[in-house]
């Protein structure tokens, strides 16, 4: 078992080290790191802009690049949080709490240095977890029939929509909307056009790039325009030399780093609890076990090391359910899955055996990419810090151009640009009504497969809808449904009985939305 995994990994390194794949991986992490640093740009919008550009390149390169953007952005986001106190990248919001006080004490460089080390430790653990866990999951998942797949998707969708930020009820509503948007287009079995309003351009369904760029591009720009104040760059003079932490800081960070890593890797396995939740939980845990909890928030290096390690281990771990089961845990993973589907690759447990180059190449590229990021971040810190000063008023018009041309290039069709505008307007309306649009993408990507498997399961069971909870014939499916019910019951219980337990969650919900700088 272990040896097969290691031989496969060796093969993966062969794929990832091919010069063109290496190049795509490098471009991905470079762009990712850059947008991570820029306040007001996120990995979601960037991946959607780059997505149409990957149509022309082979699937392996495309996936390596798009994934690189995601984990590269995590490195950049930390710089933004620590030096500017801008929690514009949700997973790093908690890093502000101790990172910025450190910056004010003149130890910002050391905090960044610790961040790079903990990120690498966290990511390495997440990758190792993927190497050994994904094949095990696959051997189980290959036995799944339509009923099991359906129940698993239901569980994934419920977890993805209720555990993410915001009200769980609204999360579920957004997921259902996503499933409905996924329905638009011709029916897979009969070819009947559904919800196309008679527009021929919609017969192929809503374009995923248009949906993502409408929701995370145009709607986000409308939300942030004139809201981001000029950033205060007075603490941002950091050079290569400043990155070196002292021996004492290093000694204090190791423990925190490993605890953060473990928490992150556990969170990654539950769909819906991505890096943001992992970093908040690990910060709270670190504060609880610390001998001096009252000092947290005043510049404790542990408060930087722990959430950063858990973010990165969770980011890498997020790929496990996506690549082995075909169930994305959050919107970014949904986009990556969408990119695979555009390339004609069917996601699911058969992916590892049918396309070993993609899976193992991706795993190997994670390591290569993370090493590249350490190299990019340590000596070039001065350049990244300069990027922090780019004002939003230059950023969003440029990004809008990339949005327009990116959507246009999906089908060389202006209709798609119009579609994006309409989706953007609806997306902004949803934001105003306190909906978080991320689950829409989750539902949209899973929708068609969910419907297909649902229909098939019902056909096989001859219309008996109890097939999903039939313990004798479909124990796995029944187990997933049981978990889904438990998920709802536990959340209801917590909400009704112990509203106090939600307070950290409320803080968490408040923080990532605070796009304007917090009191410095």
């Amino acid at each position, binding site marked *: 078992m272990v040896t097969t995994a290691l031989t496969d990994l060796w093969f993966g390194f062969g794929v990832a080290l091919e010069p063109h794949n290496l190049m795509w991986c490098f471009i991905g992490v470079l762009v990712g790191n850059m947008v991570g640093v820029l306040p007001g740009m996120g990995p979601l919008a960037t991946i959607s802009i780059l997505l149409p550009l990957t149509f022309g390149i082979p699937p392996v390169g495309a996936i390596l690049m798009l994934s690189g953007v995601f984990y590269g952005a995590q490195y950049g986001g930390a710089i933004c949080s620590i030096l500017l106190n801008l929690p514009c990248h949700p997973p790093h919001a908690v890093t502000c709490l101790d990172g910025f006080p450190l910056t004010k004490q003149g130890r910002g460089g050391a905090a960044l240095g610790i961040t790079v080390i903990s990120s690498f430790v966290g990511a390495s653990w997440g990758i190792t977890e993927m190497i050994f866990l994904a094949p095990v999951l696959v051997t189980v998942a290959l036995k799944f029939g339509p009923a099991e797949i359906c129940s698993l998707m239901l569980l994934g969708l419920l977890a993805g929509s209720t555990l993410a930020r915001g009200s769980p009820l609204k999360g579920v*509503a957004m997921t259902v*909307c996503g499933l*409905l948007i996924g329905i638009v287009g011709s029916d897979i079995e009969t070819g009947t056009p559904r919800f196309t309003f008679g527009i021929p351009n919609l017969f192929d369904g809503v374009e995923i790039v248009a949906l993502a760029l409408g929701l995370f591009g145009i709607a986000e720009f409308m939300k942030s325009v004139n809201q981001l104040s000029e950033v205060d760059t007075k603490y941002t003079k950091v050079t290569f030399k400043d990155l070196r932490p002292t021996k004492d800081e290093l000694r204090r960070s190791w423990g925190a780093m490993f605890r953060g890593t473990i928490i992150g890797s556990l969170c990654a396995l539950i769909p819906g609890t991505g890096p943001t939740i992992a970093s908040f939980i690990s910060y709270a845990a670190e504060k609880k076990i610390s001998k001096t909890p009252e000092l947290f928030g005043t510049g404790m290096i542990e408060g930087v090391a722990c959430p950063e390690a858990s973010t990165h281990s969770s980011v890498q771990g997020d790929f496990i359910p996506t690549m082995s089961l075909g169930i994305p845990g959050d919107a970014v993973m949904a986009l990556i899955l969408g990119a695979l589907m555009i390339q004609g690759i069917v996601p699911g447990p058969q992916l590892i055996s049918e396309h070993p180059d993609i899976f193992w190449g991706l795993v190997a590229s994670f390591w290569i990419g993370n090493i590249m990021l350490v190299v990019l971040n340590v000596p070039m810190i001065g350049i990244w810090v300069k990027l922090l000063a780019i004002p939003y*008023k*230059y950023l969003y*018009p440029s990004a809008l*151009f990339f949005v327009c041309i990116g959507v246009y290039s999906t089908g060389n069709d202006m209709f798609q640009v119009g579609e994006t505008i309409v989706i953007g307007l609806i997306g902004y309306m949803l934001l105003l009504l306190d909906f978080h649009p991320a689950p829409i993408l989750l539902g949209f990507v899973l929708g068609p497969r969910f419907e297909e498997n649902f229909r098939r399961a*019902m056909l096989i069971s001859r219309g008996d809808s109890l097939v999903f909870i039939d313990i004798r014939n479909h124990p796995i499916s029944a187990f997933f449904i049981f978990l889904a019910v438990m998920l709802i019951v536990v959340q209801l219980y917590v909400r009704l009985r112990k509203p106090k337990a939600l307070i950290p969650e409320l803080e968490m919900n408040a923080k990532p939305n605070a796009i304007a700088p917090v009191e410095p």
Partner: protein
Amino acid sequence: MFQTLFHKRDFYAGGLMTLLGAGVAFDSGTYDVGSLTHMGPGMFPLMLGVVLTFIGVLIFGTALVTPLGEDEHILPRQKEWRGWFCIIAGPVLFIIFGHYFGMAPATFMCVFVSALGDRTSTLLGSVLLGFAITIPGCALFSLVLHLPFPIFRWGF
């Protein structure tokens, strides 16, 4: 009580979802629903529509039982009409200018107009930003990536 209800976000959020769900549920009746064994194209949307209506009613219900938030507004306190208008106008002009005049004018108009949405931006600054994006942008997409979208055209 009804006075405050109209100021609540969840009132509109729930209402919107209920309407959407009900609309979908009714509309899916126009497709073949089929039976549970042989589902037609209308069955899945019908089920989703019913679920969404139910959730919408629940959200609506939370609006009834929770007190009005202290700072609850549907529109943000600062209404950025100029910003919102310019951000939408940019891509709209991209479509129009792209259709009739080609990539370069479309890019310029998109960047220029959307840049005007920021309250601190000036006319000159926006023009310069427009040129600064248009020239490398068109070079990248037209010459490097070979996007089939002419830099200039006369499409009347």
